[in-house]
């Protein structure tokens, strides 16, 4: 799993040397920024279900045709799966906040995403709408500190870009 620490170690290992001062400094930089993202991760985890539910509702509101017979949100099973997908994205974003990089989203969310949605005939626009809603819903300092919100929004932007 890619993070600052593992990247530094992989580079040091490739050169066969002990961690150098500059290696330690880049790890220190990552640790200093960790407080904000851990705060965001904590807040998101405590409210993940509601955040995902609101995002899901917003995208169905914008694309009501999804409720029509034969569409992706038509039956109860489909609805549950749509809501679950949004929740998956929010969970992966929480992982990214914990790790301090986009590794979890890249490996477990984005890799193969295009192929899966094409094979299942799912539109990506509703996903974009759901994540965009979450992107604009967060508010500092009501939900979390400004720095934490920046980290959180950056990851939502990253996920939105991967779907666009």
């Amino acid at each position, binding site marked *: 799993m890619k993070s600052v620490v593992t990247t530094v170690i992989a580079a040091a*290992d490739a050169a066969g040397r002990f961690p150098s001062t500059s290696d330690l400094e880049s790890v220190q930089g990552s640790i200093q920024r960790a407080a904000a993202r*851990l705060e965001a991760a904590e807040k998101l985890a405590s409210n993940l279900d509601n955040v995902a539910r609101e995002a899901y509702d917003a995208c169905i509101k914008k694309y009501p045709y999804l409720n029509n017979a034969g569409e992706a949100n038509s039956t109860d099973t489909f609805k549950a799966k749509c809501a679950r997908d949004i929740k998956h994205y929010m969970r992966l974003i929480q992982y990214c906040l914990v790790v301090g990089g986009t590794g979890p989203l890249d490996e477990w969310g984005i890799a193969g995403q295009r192929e899966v949605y094409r094979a299942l005939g799912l539109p990506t626009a509703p996903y974009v709408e759901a994540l965009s809603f979450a992107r604009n819903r967060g508010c500092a300092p009501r939900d979390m500190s400004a720095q934490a919100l920046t980290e959180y929004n950056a990851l939502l932007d990253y996920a939105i870009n991967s779907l666009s």
Partner: protein
Amino acid sequence: MLDAFSRAVVAADASTSTVSDINALKAFVASGNRRLDAVNAIASNASCMVSDAVAGMICENQGLIQAGGNCYPNRRMAACLRDAEIILRYVTYALLAGDASVLDDRCLNGLKETYAALGVPTTSTVRAVQIMKAQAAAHIMDTPSEKFAGAKLRKMGSPVVEDRCASLVAEASSYFDRVIAALS
């Protein structure tokens, strides 16, 4: 390769839940500078630690440097020093990451079988690792032994905290123990 953060993520993903134990990670972050000092203490003294550990191993078993011993001739002694440095290096990586996966995947996996095939004596290797374990503890606590170091005594001089980084000493020791367990 995982670190303390990605380990928590992989564990949470196994049950499709969010990472809930954020406090453990906050503690990791809070003691981050101590960890970096510990890594620096080992990395800065690595060559000394390695040569001392191998020399100590040979002192206790002179047969190693006599004809037919595993550290004779120089070519094999050099291989021994190189291997001790490699092991110490991966332990340092593990300490930096806060997770043993890099040590397991890149160093210990198959090491025992390789040494068995090459006829490297396990007991001697384990002894050298044990010496490095004691040295690492001394360097992390910044309490190198004046009695043994003599004129070569070298202190890191990093700010000393109350518990002398006891948790990091325990963590580093656990990685050395992992090496010993993998070899024996």
